[in-house]
């Protein structure tokens, strides 16, 4: 699926939480495969809604959402859920982890839920793959700790590991650095890029912090992608 030239292609999309009141329109939005895209815009510019449409959590009233070669609008909700889990990694701003699982269990979770993620690991077993990734992110001493014991920065790194395990084709990061201080922010970005490259994943990075945009192949203002429907 990584072979499709366009990782994401949204066309003539109209969406409203109330179907009769459209709030977001996307005429044409393309993310080429393998690129790192920086999406910036203030909060309230439809960022969350756009990501909801890309990941298939939300369903547009009209238009087409092709993500990784699959037309999301033709799929049932549970097939979209599976597509999302199998093909996409997602990193939130904070609280990315299931509080009652250990680092190891959190990272391994996508592989337990999806066969595709399990099949694409680099190491021979899921456990070894988890260890490899966690070591890569410098957290090997915390493998079997509860995630509540980790600092915010460490938690975000665990979130990277969980997002990229089993080499998903698309990684979406939704303001992942805003809970980190400036020094850690750049280290985080470097790690994220490295592991995304290793996984060969397209990266969509959403932030209002434009100081990060120089790292990216393409920078897109949210206001150019979406417009508030009349």
């Amino acid at each position, binding site marked *: 699926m990584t072979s499709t030239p366009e990782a994401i292609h949204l066309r003539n999309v109209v969406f409203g939480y109330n179907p009769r009141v459209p709030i977001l329109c996307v005429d044409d939005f393309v993310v080429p495969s393998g690129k790192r895209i920086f999406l910036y815009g203030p909060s309230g510019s439809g960022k969350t809604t756009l990501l909801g449409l890309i990941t298939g959590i939300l369903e547009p009233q009209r238009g087409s959402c092709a993500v990784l070669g699959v037309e999301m609008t033709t799929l049932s909700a*549970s097939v979209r859920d599976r597509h999302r889990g199998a093909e996409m990694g997602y990193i939130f701003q904070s609280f990315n*982890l299931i*509080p009652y699982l250990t680092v190891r269990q959190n990272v391994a979770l996508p592989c337990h839920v999806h066969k595709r993620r399990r099949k694409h690991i680099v190491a021979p077993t899921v456990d070894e793959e988890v260890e490899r990734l966690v070591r890569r992110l410098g957290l090997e001493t915390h493998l079997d700790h509860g995630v509540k014991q980790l600092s915010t920065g460490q938690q975000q790194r665990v979130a990277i590991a969980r997002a990229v395990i089993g080499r998903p084709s698309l990684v979406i990061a939704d303001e992942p650095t805003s809970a980190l201080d400036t020094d850690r922010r750049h280290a985080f970005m470097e790690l994220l890029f490295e592991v995304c490259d290793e996984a060969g994943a397209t990266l969509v990075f959403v932030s209002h912090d434009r100081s990060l945009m120089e790292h990216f192949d393409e920078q897109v203002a949210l206001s150019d992608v979406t417009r508030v429907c009349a």
Partner: protein
Amino acid sequence: MTTLQLAWQSLRSRKFTSGLTIFSIGLSVMLLVGVDRIRQGAQVGFEGTLSQTDLVVGARGGSLPLLLYAVFHIGTANNEISWDTYQHFAHHPAVLWTIPLAMGDSHRGFRVVATDDNFYQHYRYRGDHSLQMAQGSRAEGIFDAVLGSAVASQLHYHLGQKIVLSHGLEASFIRHTADPYTVVGILARTATPVDRAIYITLRGDEAMHYGWQNGAPPLQPVPESQISPADLQIKTISAFLLRTRSRIGTLFLQREINTYKPEPLTAIIPAFTLEDLWKVLSAADVALSLVSGAVLVVGLLVMLTALYTSLNERRREIAVLRTIGLNARQIFTLFILESALISAVGAAFGLAAAYFVLLVARIPVENNYGIPLAMVGLSARTAVYLGCVVAAGALLGFIPAMRAYRNALVDGLNAG
């Protein structure tokens, strides 16, 4: 990691509230199951006390009091049966055997039952169990006494011990000090009221009251050496147990005894009278079960509250699960599994606790109240109770599940 494991881990992470919830459900299940098990345990215990006896015969009176004093040593006999009448029925052609019982004396709170060899030979409990001597032999001499196993163990008596019997059942001030009895045998444990009595011979009972007039002892106690068996005429007994030669004979004989002209008598079929007892007790059973049921509802509501209030904290967790591809149905399942797990663990805990209490309480209840409690397995009713608890728990899980599901739809990936 399966949804079940996830649910389990999630509950474990909230050990305190999960534990409290499990405890409250467990406690209410314990009550519910306990009431039911004790009822059935008592039922089996009572029914097991006497078997192969077709009729219990006493002086004219209520059938339940007769059964209770003659077999379970609860309450007292109001009247007696004359020895002649007893002889008449003991030699009746329809009768296979009889066991005469004369009561009215006691020793340190344990009843003294005067009987004869037929008791050791024919008494049966729990189907076909007969009485066995643990030590010594049957009481044959006038001043011989045989102890039930509970009497021997509680009073630490041994063979050859001299004991003094009291007149009447409560700690009486009239003691038959003149006539010390000797322990010649100890019965093996039966786990029935048989264990809680002292057995002497019918002649021994007469000897105790030798020279008495109108229920008062003679002014000068009669020394043991002056009593000879020939002087002892057995005049009355309290009741007797009887087995007929054929089942059909039982009903005819019962009618014959109940209409016996020379003396007013009551003959009862023990199983039928026990049925009456259960009918009396079933109202209490229903009341207790209702109370336990109400406690159970409270326990389940505690669980609902705990799960529901945790939902807000868990919005994030659910959003994360959604991003890794769990669909709404799986989130729903997670919550129902959690509540089902809580109630299943609670039910198991309650069941174990109920049996533990039964196991621990059995002997003291038997010893202090004379109520034989049998250990009984699971009944259909208990299984239904347990099934209902788990089903109700799972069903209640729908409420937080619905809310979480709705949250997940509204929140999208943006919860928190």
